């Protein structure tokens, strides 16, 4: 089921998986990380972010963890990549790398002048 639902993997979901590959993050942390890794081009809004998070949770590609510290009001839900999520992110990254190689081979990306 997970394979079918995330085939193709939506951009927002992939961004979130990549963001979580580095460290466990809460919602705002994920948003910031995605913004950073896309050079500021992608700012996930709350609706898209939590919609994607729930879908990823449903398919067990990520899991929720207790943040532990902080007062009740400040306590945030943190998210962590599962083994399945890491596998799916890697598969997608490899697919993109293949595409990049093809783009290079067809001279879409230039070499540098030396």
């Amino acid at each position: 089921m997970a394979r079918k639902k995330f085939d193709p993997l939506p951009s927002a979901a992939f961004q979130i998986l990549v963001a979580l590959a580095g460290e466990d993050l809460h919602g705002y942390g994920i948003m910031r990380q995605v913004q950073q890794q896309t050079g500021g081009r992608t700012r996930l809004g709350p609706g898209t972010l939590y919609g994607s998070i729930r879908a990823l949770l449903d398919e067990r590609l990520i899991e929720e963890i207790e943040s532990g510290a902080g007062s009740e009001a400040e306590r945030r839900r943190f998210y962590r990549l599962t083994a399945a999520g890491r596998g799916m992110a890697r598969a997608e990254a490899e697919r993109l790398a293949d595409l990049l190689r093809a783009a290079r081979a067809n001279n879409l990306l230039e070499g540098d002048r030396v």
Partner: protein
Amino acid sequence: MSEKRAAALYGWLLRLYPAAFREQYGDEALALFRDRYRDERGLMARTRLWMDLLADLAASVPRERRRFKMGAMALAAHRTGMPSFQVLEDESLRPSMAISGAAVSTVAFCICWILMSHWTWQSRAESDINGVGARAVVTIAAPTGSSEAGRNEKMLAPAAAASGVDPEQVAQAAALNLERYYVDHEAARKIADGLRQRAKAGAYNGAGDGRALAAMLTKDLMALSGGDRALTVNYFEAPLPEGPRAVSAESAARYREAVQAQNCMIRTAEVQPDHVGYIRLDGFPDPGVCEAKARAAMAKINGADAIIFDLRENGGGYPGMVALIAAYLFDHPEYLYNPREATTANSWTRSPVNGNRLAGKPVFLLISPRTRSGAEQFAYDLKALKRATLVGEKTGGAAHSGVFHRIDDHFGMGIPEVRAINPFGEGDWEGVGIEPDVKTPADAALATAEKLAAARAREIDALRRITAR
């Protein structure tokens, strides 16, 4: 707007989501909004924040509702054979919904109004500056304004067979680029008018393909400008990238690695038994990467009584490196003419160089048709300053003085944007090359130069013995 009020407004907007979603993530979404509101200050940042939120609502509300409905329908489908009714939303529509609806429209209206007034102001300012008014707005081919992109121009091979080329459009865009960037504004207007007239008269409609069209335009530009060879239109079969070419940290690192693996293009640097220093440079790499290696090579030949620079395979590079090496050949700052850059303090060599003994020694340059660009600058200036004897064959003739501008996916043009002071003569070596002082086949140039250099070295050595006595 205070943070509290803004959060209350966003809280209203959150009610557009199904109750289940709100229950699960409403607080988190609100917390995220508060964080962003706190971090993103200033009119532009706040406007962007609200725009983001509205776009997010527009995209995710229907998705979440659809999802919620599907879940309910799946539940209903279990009871087969019986019509069933499900209540999808367990809350009735409250009056506050009307208020939140009104709030959304007001915010959206305000944002549109702010953005529209901003844009009108900006485009008006732009056309005032350019002085080309509406033409600047309708042109299909905005020039890129990138000066770095130009250095690549000759690397992409032009090829035949273009489809869907509109000659008049290309000519019009070329004319507009000229008016914007050509170093001589008055001449630019005349050339552009000439080009437009010819385009209107249909002079370019007969061009068979993109390459032929580029050649026709280049020929006309040369005639209209009174012989400016750096003014060109070029056709590229592979689509040209849009926007200025960014120099990324990654490509800079790749360049550094490649150039270091090539020993900074320094093939040999040695003093032969007859006191002739021989240094073969196959390029003038970035001094930011190669300064230490270049200085070490020059130090190695410091004891020579005559120097041979072998530039037969040197395709050019960075003017900074040309100046760095030329500095060793003078005991005072000397002006080097570079057609690509306007005259600045960096146009003079940083001579004398501490501990250097090469300033007065005879210099020979080996040149060939493969000596191009930056290497030709080195040869041109040393020849003009009567500081070197050029041995071999005429150089390639690539000054690259035009800055590249993209016209569309397949056409670009080179336009000289600066006029460097040339105290040595008219124009540069684009298309004509630099003649040697001693003509010999490039293969035999080293042997010829060695004989000349050895003779000069002997003279200097003899002179030294006399004065030492």
